[in-house]
């Protein structure tokens, strides 16, 4: 059974329908990439999966529960964690406080040992996060902030991650470390749905991909199939991809 099952999803801002009947599924342990030009509805879809936008129509089933109408905190508690576009850290809080907020639902129940274990796992993935623990998140470089954003989602011990544009504004070297970390997460068996405009990077880490155009799925297939599709090569991998 898929971990995330989306069927006939419609999402509108007022009268403007942005997502027009999207259906897809993510199996446990898979990394799935969503591609699409600006305005295709990717971020909108991600936001509604996380409960930040109510769909106009359609069903979202996560871990066997219908979450189409669930509030964001309920979805997070089911184990679906969003790493939002633009990172959205708490800039004046230290890195450690950001992570504690990520693990809020565990710490509130006194599971400190579990949090300590999550931290160790995060340090293994991103040694830089340990070095920056006491610093305000807002003073970190872009790459470090993205590491903290992913770590904040990981310490909630999610069943699945939604990652929206991790590459935004990153220089080549930190970009590489973020995608290496995603490969490491894949090896650990984490389920991930990722939106990434740098298609060649996204296709490198994913198992399968969907291409969204004008609010509908125009194309889907394995990473290799998508990477070989002439339309994808032209629009997403092109000369300056």
């Amino acid at each position, binding site marked *: 059974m898929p971990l995330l099952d989306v069927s006939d999803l419609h999402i509108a*801002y*007022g*009268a*403007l329908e942005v997502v027009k009947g999207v259906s897809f599924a993510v199996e446990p342990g898979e990394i799935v990439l969503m*591609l*699409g*030009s*600006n*305005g*295709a509805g990717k*971020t909108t879809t991600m936001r509604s999966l996380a409960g930040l936008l109510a769909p106009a129509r359609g069903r979202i089933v996560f871990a066997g529960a219908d979450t189409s109408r669930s509030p964001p905190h309920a979805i997070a508690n089911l184990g679906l964690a969003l790493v939002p*576009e*633009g990172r959205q850290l708490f800039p004046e809080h230290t890195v450690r406080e950001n992570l504690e907020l990520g693990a809020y639902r565990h710490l509130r129940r006194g599971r400190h040992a579990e949090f300590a274990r999550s931290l160790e796992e995060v340090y293994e993935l991103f040694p830089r996060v340990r070095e920056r623990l006491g610093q305000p998140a807002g003073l970190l*470089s*872009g*790459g*470090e902030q993205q590491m903290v954003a992913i770590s904040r989602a990981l310490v909630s011990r999610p069943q699945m991650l939604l990652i929206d*544009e991790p590459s*935004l*504004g*990153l*220089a*080549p*070297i*930190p*970009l*590489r470390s973020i995608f290496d970390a995603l490969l490491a997460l894949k090896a650990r068996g984490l389920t991930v749905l990722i939106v990434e*405009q740098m*298609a060649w990077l996204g296709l490198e880490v994913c198992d399968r991909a969907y291409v969204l155009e004008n609010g509908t799925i125009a194309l889907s297939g394995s990473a290799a199939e998508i990477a070989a599709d002439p339309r994808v090569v*032209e*629009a*997403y*991998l*092109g*000369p*300056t*991809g």
Partner: protein
Amino acid sequence: MTARGWLVGLALAALVLLPLFVQGTYYRFLGIVVFIYGIVAVGLNILAGYAGQLSLGHAALMAMGAYTTAILTKALAPVAFFAATGLHIWLGVIAGTAVAAAFGALLAFPALRVRGPYLAMVTIAFGWVIFKVLQEWVSVTGGDLGLASIPKAQIGLYIFDTQSFYYVVLALFAVAFLLQQQLVGSQIGLAIRAMKHSEIAVSSVGINVHRLKVLVFVISAAFAGFGGTLFAHQQNYISPDNFQFFSSVFFLLAVLFGGAGTLLGPVIGAAVLTLLPEMLHDFEKFRLIVYGGFILVTLYFLPNGVMGLLERRGAARADSGSAARDAVQPDFAATAGASLELDNVSKSFGGLQALRDVSFRVAPGSIHALIGPNGAGKTTLINVVTGFYRTDGGAILIDGQAANIASMHDAARRGIVRTFQTIKLFGDMTVLEHVLIGLACHSGAGFRLPGRVQAREQAARNLAAARELIALVGLSRFEQTPSSALAYGHRRLLEIARALAVRPKVLLLDEPAAGLIAEEIASLAEIIRKLRAAGMTVLLIEHHIDLVVSISDRVTVLDYGAVIADGPPAAVQRDERVIAAYLGPFHALA
């Protein structure tokens, strides 16, 4: 005429005819009060609703108008000339409005430093000070007893009674409403509405935000003072009690209740909140509880006020059918690019040296890329060049002349225009409006109210120019879309269109390709090449190395605030230090 235009016309006709059908001075009196409060609320709406500057001191500004005219007309009334002409009343109205406007300018100064709740606190303090002065300065204001026997409004020998004054105030109220409409629709209005969302972005297109803020406070205070003068001549008696803190709250409540930042909102709010208590007489001692409860419930269900609800219903239109225009080549001939030179520029924040002795030259009419790791000081450099920060040392030269750039709007006026890494747009304003604001500054028509022929022609020219720029960045089908509804990459393109509207000599692009797919990056490259072909100088900060390599004439690399390489892209790409600090072993893939 639009449907709304007809509605307003009908409402006005009803108000004109009302006294013929409703008998009794009481209702006319109530009407006058509604119109006066409406004028004050309209003024507050311009400030709080459109410009986003909270004020809880408007009752004090109204008091300035009322007391000024009261004192002046009482002094002049015995003079035979004034008694025969009634001129003293209208002198008083003008003087009262002017005095309130002057106090508005005074109140604007704290607003240059503080915002939101802090500004609200300052205006509350202002209101208290004025209230106390009115109470204590007995020789002038009459203290708690106030000023009585203020002359009634008069023209020639004709003295207005409640019946005729109703029409005078109705007409003045209509004028105030029209002024609001004209202001909001003008170029100033665009800038005022934009200021609410991002003051930094407003100054980036060359508008002096400080002056704009003072202006909007003056305008708003003038409305309040004007309302105050009419109030004085209607009541014939004023005391500090008329202008208490609660009155200020009342006006803000009226604006929020009706719908802040809408034309009709303050009018509806003032009318409902004034008339409602009168209709609740039957509730006797529970009257204020019912009144408060009604406001509470309404604001809970209508967070954007009455007009907010109506506009949401009406906002069905989305992508207007404006077809995508292609093959656009905007006329940039007027903007020959300038050279930009940094000579030993340094900048530090506390102990952190963000820029150390940075020197390089951007040739006129070239595409010059600035690359480096996250945190290398690239954005700081843009901030220094555009006057957002002052340098600690070194010089910035434009076309070889040392430029002492004092502020962002100063930089924009010299033709140094930027986009922002952390996108700064104007919330719910449309794509078209964003670009029109950019055009306002250099077209010179900027700060003139529309209506005159040249102004209308200028507006048409601006509209055409704005559409061209929007087409250039490929956003034509989103002309009427609020910027908040745009996808991330489209917001970046809109920032570029807004910057181009200022007609830059040097355009500074801070990560324009972030969030774009390959196809979109290719069109962005095409746009940047077109700008160079037209002679513009472009300084490009970007992490998409292929884009940098394919379009740049020259590349400068920053690391830890210092230049580590400078040269043609191919050479920089091979530089060992650049590979170690920035590109990584991985660059071969890119």
